């Protein structure tokens, strides 16, 4: 009898263990927390780049230089494309949006929409020409022309042997005067990781 009881308890325990080992656990974590799993590019890298480059671009001299030359007017920036030439798929939008957000929040720089979103805006404007009331209809030809374009590139170097690997990422952002093609600011963020499998 005792043996049977023991067997029953053991079976229940084993099944509980089996069920718990199969169940997936998901916990919300802080986006500020660094969790490295594979060693690949992750949210912490994106955050590091965003924090560093936002601070650098807003603290650089190009804003003051522009304002001095244009009677205190704020510079207008459009975001161009970023070329990812690294060995991993990296979406630059994750850190570019943070930089754009810093532009808008600090009000030091005016930001204009580009790419597909600008196309959408123009299409909406076109729609308004025939559907909106005359007093609310927006006109073509009154967009803000950008003074500068922000472009970038992501590069990487991988040095790997057996189970060890060093990965180096370099993210560059450049701000160029659209009229003169003069580069007025270059920012870079370098990240190196040592990965051991």
């Amino acid at each position, binding site marked *: 009898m005792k043996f049977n009881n023991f067997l029953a308890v053991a079976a229940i325990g084993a099944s509980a263990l089996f069920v718990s080992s199969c169940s997936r656990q998901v916990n919300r974590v802080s986006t500020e927390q660094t969790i490295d799993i594979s060693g690949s590019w992750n949210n912490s890298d994106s955050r590091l780049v965003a924090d560093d480059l936002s601070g650098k671009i807003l603290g650089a001299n190009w804003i003051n230089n522009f304002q001095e030359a244009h009677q205190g007017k704020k510079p207008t920036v*459009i*975001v*161009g*494309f*970023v*070329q*990812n*030439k*690294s*060995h*991993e*798929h*990296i*979406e*630059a*939008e994750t850190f*570019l949006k943070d930089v754009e957000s810093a532009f808008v929040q600090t009000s030091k720089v005016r930001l204009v929409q*580009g*790419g*597909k*979103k*600008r*196309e959408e805006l123009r299409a909406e404007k076109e729609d308004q020409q025939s559907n909106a009331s005359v007093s609310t209809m927006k006109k073509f030809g009154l967009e803000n022309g950008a003074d500068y374009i922000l472009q970038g590139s*992501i590069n*990487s170097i*991988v040095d*790997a*042997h*057996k*189970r060890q*690997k060093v990965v180096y990422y370099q993210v560059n952002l450049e701000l160029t005067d659209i009229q003169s093609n003069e580069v007025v600011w270059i920012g870079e963020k370098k990240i190196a990781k040592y990965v051991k*499998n």
Partner: protein
Amino acid sequence: MKRNLFIIAALVAGCFYSFNVSAQQSSLVQDQNPRYKESERKYARIADTLNSEHGTTIQNTYKAFDWYEAKQERRQQNREWRHEERLNGGYYDYTPSWSLYGGYSYPFNSYRGYGGYGFGNHWGGGRSRFGVGVGFGW
């Protein structure tokens, strides 16, 4: 009379040309390249395509060699090959077709056939069902 008409036409054409040139020069700002229209025409054609990329990431990635990852990939590939072989009912799946060797072609297995994997083991014919013509099928 004809001569006078010719002179008048030449004068009109000259006036028209000089008017055009002066109009173009007057639209130039200081130090602007007078041939800027050439560039403008060129980029008017491609501006929409290029500008649609604004704010995006152009993925131009490369594959870095990683010893450990390459090993894992090789293992995974081997697993897939073995799985394929099991699905095919054995290592040698003879497909009756024309060949130089008695009606049996070289074992049809596209994974084994390319990529330099496993030829050494197969050419011996150790695990083949028939043992004839193995390895010399083409």
